[in-house]
């Protein structure tokens, strides 16, 4: 695939993030952290979600993990940070520091294409044009701007009549 075509596939916003991981000297640490899932959407890893921003090792051997919150008050971030620490410790990295970074602000543009499909499979309509994750109908109605969590809105499908969550574009 030509570089030009790749640009169309990888969202511009995601590009920086992907490059950071690709060029990192700590490939096995990034891979280890693929095990850490979002407690609210357990089919997604923090990497696919775009919450995992960087993994570095300091001079004294401390693994420094940079996370960014999805919504500023998201209570899942604390749990993600704890799971990151536990995962690294269980795999021979006793010194872990989790840093929270606010800028650039998290955006749903950072969700990988894979992540969008996984969301749909999990019953959550991914950000963008809203379709029913059950029957794919576009005949949908907004019930509430805020669903089970701050990052989701509640919809109902007019075709299959099922209620479902929509991961809001942010």
């Amino acid at each position, binding site marked *: 695939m030509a570089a030009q075509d790749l640009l169309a596939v990888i969202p511009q916003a995601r590009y920086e993030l992907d490059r950071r991981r690709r060029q990192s000297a700590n490939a096995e640490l990034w891979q280890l952290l693929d095990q850490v899932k979002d407690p609210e959407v357990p089919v997604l890893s923090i990497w696919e979600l775009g919450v995992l921003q960087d993994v570095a090792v300091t001079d004294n051997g401390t693994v420094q993990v940079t996370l960014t*919150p999805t*919504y*500023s*008050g*998201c*209570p899942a971030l604390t749990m993600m940070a704890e799971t990151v620490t536990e995962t690294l410790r269980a795999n021979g990295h006793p010194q872990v520091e989790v840093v929270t970074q*606010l*800028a*650039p*602000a*998290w*955006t749903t543009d950072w969700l990988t294409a894979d992540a969008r499909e996984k969301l749909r499979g999990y019953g959550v309509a991914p950000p963008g044009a809203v379709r029913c994750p059950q029957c794919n109908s576009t005949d949908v109605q907004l*019930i*509430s*701007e*805020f*669903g*089970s*969590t*701050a990052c989701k809105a*509640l919809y109902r499908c007019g075709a299959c009549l099922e209620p479902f969550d929509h991961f*809001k574009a*942010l």
Partner: protein
Amino acid sequence: MVVAPAEQAVAQYALRLGDDALVLGQRLCEWCACAPILEEDIAIANVGLDYFGRARMALQYAGSLLGKSEDELAFLRDANAFTNLLMVELPIGDFAFSMVRHYLLDEFETLFFAQLARSEDATLAAIAAKSNKEVAYHLRRSREWMRRLALGTGESRQRTQRAVDELWGYVDELFAMDELEQSLAAQGIAVDRATLKASWHQQVTELFAELAIELPGQDWQVSGGRQGVHTEHLGRMLSEMQFLQRAYPGLEW
């Protein structure tokens, strides 16, 4: 800890933003379990969570400059040390009152955070950029409620108009600039609130015209929140919010 004057000013500004968010977040969560419908119960608590998130970011920043923890700032200051705007501390009232307050603030915050996201202070700019995205959803929701309430039944319409009348005297404080904010605005750190008033007024009056809500007269305005002069309601709210830390100092979840 000796804090340099420049840092002291930024800390004070962050404290104001944090206090506004913390107090309103607390008020919003009072609706949890008693909102008119289940969906609203969940929505209002989620919006409250956005405010707590913003409060934490701002208070952590203020605390880092003042040598205090976010918990010390939130739970161990008395009412006269709080610097929030008076409008946010008023009791929740009926649902119309809470939603009108929210709408008036959402229109303001939409303008405010878009500006603050360009602050010379990188941390304030980052906090604002995050808040700005969340406020867009808050505004969509509160505009929708304004329509439903104003165009709903005679009762909901009357309550909406009453809420507008009761809240109108607290609006001016949103746009008030004192020496601290003027000096920070001149350095490109703070937002010049006064410059937002015309746009805010236009947005609000357009919606009010559409919904046939009468614009109240400007016969009274109150202010004082920034100086720690509050209504009697804040102390009562804090006595509940701060109870655990006061009764069990240093308690952690």
